[in-house]
């Protein structure tokens, strides 16, 4: 993948024709797996992430918490999901992302209902075209809801970037790789709370503030799609 000359053309359109604040086509599906207690497949453009939830189930002693459920989160990339075939052993990047994703989900799961249990959340990136951790957060949120885990609110994620001095939402891989900043954000709009933010790149304080503003608007929409998806799945279940 070569660096493009410009990221935004004279009409203010991005390389794939989107406007700066426009997200890629979003698809969400729940209940896609039979064994998992909850599951979801979420796509933003070509980025496809599958999430599954098992639990709550009795914890192994070594991780059992007396006053709450413990979350176990694994973010993992399929070997065929990346530009070059990825070794299936967890990379340092996957270890870090598993941690920040766990920490982005802890605030929304009502864990004190289930002391001494654990809830396993598996996030598998099937195809990567930028934004895998934020798509993963959205998929995990849906899979938790699909599993019937009590939650304070839904979260969704999106990355904000900066190219040609313009803030843009939902970076694809080229924008991520060659842009000036990549700021993944996960939030629960119904709580007004941000549960994950990271910044790779350089932003002024003002840009930083505006980036979060931009993200919150998109995340609002994404959570609405999540709700719609869940409503439809209940409907289907009811119709069966």
């Amino acid at each position, binding site marked *: 993948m070569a660096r493009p000359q410009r990221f935004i053309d004279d009409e203010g359109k991005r390389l794939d024709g989107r406007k700066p604040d426009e997200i890629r086509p979003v698809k969400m599906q729940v209940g896609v797996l039979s064994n998992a207690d909850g599951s979801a497949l979420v796509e933003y453009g070509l980025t496809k992430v599958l999430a599954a939830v098992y639990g709550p189930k009795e914890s192994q002693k070594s991780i059992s918490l007396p006053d709450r459920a413990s979350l176990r989160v694994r973010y993992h990339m399929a070997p065929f999901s990346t530009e070059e075939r990825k070794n299936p052993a967890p990379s340092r990047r996957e270890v870090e992302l598993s941690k920040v994703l766990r920490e982005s989900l802890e605030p929304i799961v009502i864990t004190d209902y289930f002391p001494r249990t654990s809830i396993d959340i598996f996030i598998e990136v099937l*195809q990567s075209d930028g934004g895998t951790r934020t798509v993963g957060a959205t998929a995990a949120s849906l899979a938790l809801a699909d599993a019937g885990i009590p939650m304070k609110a839904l979260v969704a994620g999106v990355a904000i970037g900066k190219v040609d001095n313009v803030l843009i939402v939902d970076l694809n891989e080229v924008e991520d790789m060659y842009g000036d900043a990549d700021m993944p954000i996960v939030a629960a709009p119904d709580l007004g709370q941000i549960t994950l933010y990271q910044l790779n790149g350089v932003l002024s304080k003002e840009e930083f503030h505006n980036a979060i503003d931009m993200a919150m608007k998109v995340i609002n929409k994404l959570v609405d799609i999540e709700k719609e998806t869940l409503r439809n799945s209940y409907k289907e279940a009811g119709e069966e």
Partner: protein
Amino acid sequence: MSTTPFRVQIIPKIKKESYLNLYRKGQRADERDFYSPRKISIQTNVLEKANGSSLVKLGNTQVMAGIKIEPGEPFFDTPDQGVLQVHAELVPLASPQFEPGPPDENSIELARVIDRSLRDPKAVDLNSLVIRPGDKVWMIWLDLYILDYDGNLFDASMLAAMAALLTAKMPEYEELETGEIKISKNISNNPIKINKKVVTVTTAKVENYILVDPNLDEEIISDTKSVIAFDEQGNIVGAQKTGMGSLSQEEIDNIINVSSSAAQVYFKLLNDALKSEVKEEKGDK
């Protein structure tokens, strides 16, 4: 160190008894006859960026296959052949029994049986994958990703492998002055050269009954399983007893015959899927 697996009472004895009662009447719990596989769906090109991909559903078992093709070095003793690498992951989202971690004996056995059943009958034309003999060849990474586990991973994985191989596209490349191979386009119009198609047929033996395409419940109550690989000419191109029990010579003869017929069903579905190459559900429940 291979250890007797722990799986007590997942299916209580009473359930095994009720299954056997059905078998005595010639029936199975999901209403199939003994020699029919479950409903099958084969989708190809499910991933836009991989060189090849497929998603196979065999009942509730789901396997995704993904193919990446990269330049690499040939093995010392086969300078005139490309390299095929088959790996399988029992991803923990597929089953409460699967744990994260390096491949265990089950995923290794699965990958190695698929690998041998492709390699021994020369299903993939490795000789066509040479860029510069003895120096640069194409490496085909075939990764089998088990997404949902309801028994019979072998047949679902082999169907997924073949569907992905048969629809995969080679990359385009240029040779740099330094001799380096640079991929100029990930996906061309050129397919991988496939010499022959292969399917495996898995049968479970439960007492004296032989069942094609066992689901998870049937696997758990079974005494042992056999995986037989076939080409379209009906040759046996691989075989593996898997599981703890044993078989008589007569039972093996019977398994070969039963499996040989079932292989034709798989080949038909595979060929149909390739003809249409559209994503739609196939097979009968």
